[in-house]
């Protein structure tokens, strides 16, 4: 029978939640790296037992951990992220020029075919890659070097490169997203990049339709249709049908179009999920009701999913890395909260139940479906 492994990064350690294909009973493993911030833990599609974890702290900086046995044991690998050449400057919060400084790894995206090749999205925003299982990291400097870098600026969480999407049909095509610069695409394996933000409209920047400067929170893609992208922007849920060359809004009837997460059903490319969050100051669910919204039409028409989720007095947030889906026949959907709960639905969102309730604040959730 299939198994599901949920990799949870929290503010005080990493946890590995495991269940069989029924997804009714869960074992909670961890904490791993107790006391450290775990921004992201993700497994290799080419070898599910190969995991990479981003471990960091304000005291001791960045550590990268690797597991070869599905998270039972770990070993630290290389943690040296040095920008290529002279790093230059980006905009600081006050609009002044600020030198690029490495702070942490937000996101690991393992190669679809090679367990030793991993992309790392870091703060201050840049994309790095290892081809030796994490021992050494090299910047794909064309991204920062394409010209708009001096105009990028940090969001409230820092100037992070948080999303890396690999095109399963074209190894040379990669999408990335940065808060607050926007989305970018390479078609030549990372040598050259271009902004793909046409159609985005952000009233909080001087030119609402500028080429860069948009606070993109997350992008999602279904592997069967890699040219169709879904985006949760700071405000607005957006869709592109042409690999990001143009975007249009699909917020539709959402009660608020602010949020962080967005994801796509494993088997239905037009079924997508978001968690609307009240903004701009509160950043918790509207009316204290934790609701996932599902669209079965690729956006615009949304339905609230509430069964099993708290519908009163709930004031948690769901951060951008904290939603994922499994690929069992009946698609499972998972998300974690800043209150330390991990909720799961084994029926594509119709009903929900907590599979962990008292973890530290959840920063990231990833799911592996194992044979």
């Amino acid at each position, binding site marked *: 029978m299939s198994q599901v492994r949920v990799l949870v990064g929290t503010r005080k350690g990493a946890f590995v939640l495991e269940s069989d294909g029924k997804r009714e009973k869960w074992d909670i493993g961890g904490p791993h790296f107790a*006391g*450290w911030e775990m921004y992201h833990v993700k497994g290799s599609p080419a070898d599910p037992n190969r995991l990479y974890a981003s471990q960091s*702290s*304000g*005291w*001791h*900086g*960045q*550590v990268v951990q690797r597991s070869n046995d599905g998270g039972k044991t770990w070993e*630290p690998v290389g*943690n*040296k992220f*040095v920008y290529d050449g002279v790093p230059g400057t980006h905009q600081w919060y006050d609009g002044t020029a600020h030198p690029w400084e490495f702070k942490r790894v937000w996101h690991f995206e393992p190669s679809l075919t090679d367990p030793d090749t991993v992309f790392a999205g870091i703060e201050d925003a840049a994309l790095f890659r290892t081809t030796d299982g994490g021992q050494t990291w090299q910047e794909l400097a064309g991204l920062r070097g394409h010209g708009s870098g001096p105009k990028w600026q940090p969001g409230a969480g820092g100037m992070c490169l948080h999303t890396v999407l690999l095109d399963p049909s074209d190894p040379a095509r990669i999408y990335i997203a940065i808060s607050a610069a926007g989305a970018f695409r390479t078609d030549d394996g990372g040598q050259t990049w271009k902004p793909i933000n046409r159609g985005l409209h952000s009233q909080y920047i001087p030119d609402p339709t500028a080429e860069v400067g948009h606070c993109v929170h997350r992008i999602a893609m279904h592997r069967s249709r890699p040219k169709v992208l879904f985006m949760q922007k700071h405000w607005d849920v957006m869709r592109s049908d042409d690999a990001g060359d143009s975007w249009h809004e699909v917020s539709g009837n959402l009660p608020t179009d602010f949020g962080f997460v967005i994801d796509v059903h494993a088997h239905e490319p037009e079924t997508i999920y978001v968690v609307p969050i009240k903004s701009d100051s509160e950043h918790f669910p509207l009316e204290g009701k934790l609701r996932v919204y599902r669209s079965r039409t690729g956006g615009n028409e949304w339905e609230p999913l509430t069964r099993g989720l708290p519908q009163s007095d709930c004031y948690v947030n769901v951060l951008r890395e904290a939603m994922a889906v499994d690929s069992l026949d009946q698609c499972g959907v998972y998300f974690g909260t800043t209150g330390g709960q991990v909720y799961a639905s084994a029926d594509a969102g119709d009903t929900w139940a907590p599979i962990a309730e008292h973890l530290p604040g959840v920063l990231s959730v990833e799911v592996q479906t194992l044979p």
Partner: protein
Amino acid sequence: MIRVELPAHLRTLARVGREVQLEVEGRATLCSVLDALEARYPTLQGTIRDHVTQQRRPYVRFFACEEDLSHESPDKPLPEAVASGAEPLLIVGAIAGG
């Protein structure tokens, strides 16, 4: 022989106890002791001082013989009591955070 006490998180990371003992060639300075420490435990590279600038991380301090050595030149000789192994060099993480 130089004795170095590590903060809890770095003990876990390096998989060592509270104190490690190092042989340092030549004059014992903060720099030479940290070089020896990182050579013995490569996983500590970048966690005490920056990989490139070699600057001390802001929330890390160096104490010895009831003195704060954090702002001393990294090339200044350590106190004789540390160099002889009579006293440990303390690497301390700031007591802060939630």
